[in-house]
């Protein structure tokens, strides 16, 4: 289908973009790569009066290191991450995840910030960034603020972002050299949204251990008991402890029996691939 009528606006600066949003709090949608909003427009699931294209704002298309944190501009594309165009602070995890997102033609346009702000629970970056304990920088009329990705997402496609706020960059802490990660994703076909995905990041030097489960209907779940088991010293009883911990964690995840079994298998697979 063709989208409903809208006005296309392409601001030249971040301030102008925020101003445009402030003046149109109810009826404007921000577009970066347009790979999520585009289908919604074409299917008329979204019918905003204005589309604000931020994809050419230079400030959002860059990445930089500050201390031990990498700030990735919101408009960096999945393909740029796949191709290693940004500094690797995650020992290859971001590259691995980027490769599994949709298809190259989509990855060439789709952006990291757009995906996170869209907050589709089945999309790969939410789960990944929560596992990395990343934060987001938001810019609005009252200046800039930061929020943990886990706090930012409040529901399926729901976030704490305000009407006149823009996601400007994603702040990813550098993993230490002893950190290990594991990744597992189940989708019906390559490039499809995950039915289930899990990421485990264990970083003893930073006293951090996080296992996160992503799925279709709800925001990613931090698997606290499993994370704690992985934080402990490797022991012979780990396998048994872990099985119990995963069951504890999954007891609070709403799913039918088949999905539950799938989630358990995916979490286990992510943990087994920790390298």
């Amino acid at each position: 289908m063709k989208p409903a009528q809208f006005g296309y606006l392409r601001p030249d600066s971040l301030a102008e973009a925020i101003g445009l949003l402030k003046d149109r709090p109810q009826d404007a949608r921000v577009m970066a790569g347009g790979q999520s909003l585009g289908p919604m427009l074409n299917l008329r699931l979204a019918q905003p009066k204005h589309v604000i294209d931020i994809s050419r704002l230079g400030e959002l298309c860059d990445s930089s290191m500050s201390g031990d944190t990498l700030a990735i501009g919101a408009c960096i594309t999945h393909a740029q991450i796949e191709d290693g165009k940004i500094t690797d602070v995650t020992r290859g995890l971001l590259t691995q995840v980027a490769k599994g997102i949709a298809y190259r033609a989509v990855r060439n346009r789709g952006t990291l910030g757009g995906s996170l702000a869209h907050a589709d629970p089945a999309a790969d970056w939410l789960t990944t960034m929560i596992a990395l304990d990343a934060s987001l920088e938001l810019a609005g009329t009252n200046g800039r603020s930061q929020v943990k990705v886990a706090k930012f997402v409040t529901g399926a496609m729901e976030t704490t972002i305000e009407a006149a706020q823009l996601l400007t960059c994603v702040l990813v802490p550098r993993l230490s050299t002893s950190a290990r990660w594991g990744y597992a994703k189940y989708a019906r076909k390559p490039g499809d949204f995950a039915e289930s995905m899990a990421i485990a990041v264990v970083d003893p030097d930073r006293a951090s251990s996080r296992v996160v489960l992503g799925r279709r209907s709800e925001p990613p779940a931090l698997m606290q008991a499993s994370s704690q088991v992985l934080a402990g010293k490797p022991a012979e009883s780990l396998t048994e402890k872990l099985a119990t911990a995963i069951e504890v964690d999954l007891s609070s995840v709403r799913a039918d029996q088949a999905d539950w079994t799938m989630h358990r298998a995916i979490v286990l697979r992510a943990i087994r691939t920790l390298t």
Partner: protein
Amino acid sequence: MKAVTICVNGERISRSVDDRLSLADFLREHCLLTGTHIGCEHGVCGACTLMMNGQPVRSCLTLAAAADGRDVRTVEGYEGDALMQAIRRAFNLRHALQCGFCTPGMLATAYDILSRIPDLDRERIRSELAGNLCRCTGYLSIVTAIEDVHAQGIARKGSSA
């Protein structure tokens, strides 16, 4: 309406377009380049895939207004291109199309796979092609055609979109 100038197959084209017009419709209706096919119109089928600034994109999910100032290459724009010639020859020899609806997108994706990835094998070609649907189920011959071109070793030299 928005005034846009898009370089299409080497020719600068300036038009005033509806804000909601897709790049695919711009090419088909304003430029009369109907080689770009529109299938699902929400980014899933891959039929509308073409090159923008040398990279494959979905032209159904790209607004014409957002393509302003960009360089677009459609299936009509490969005259004299050695790599595309080889891909077309292989598609022909391997019968890698039946109805031809998916073919413009398949060619663009094949061109990208062959020029971007040095260590191609059948498995990788299959996963890279996952974003292009062929309803005549001609995947085996499409994969084989791309494999043939890769084996010829011309892919990574002297070709860029």
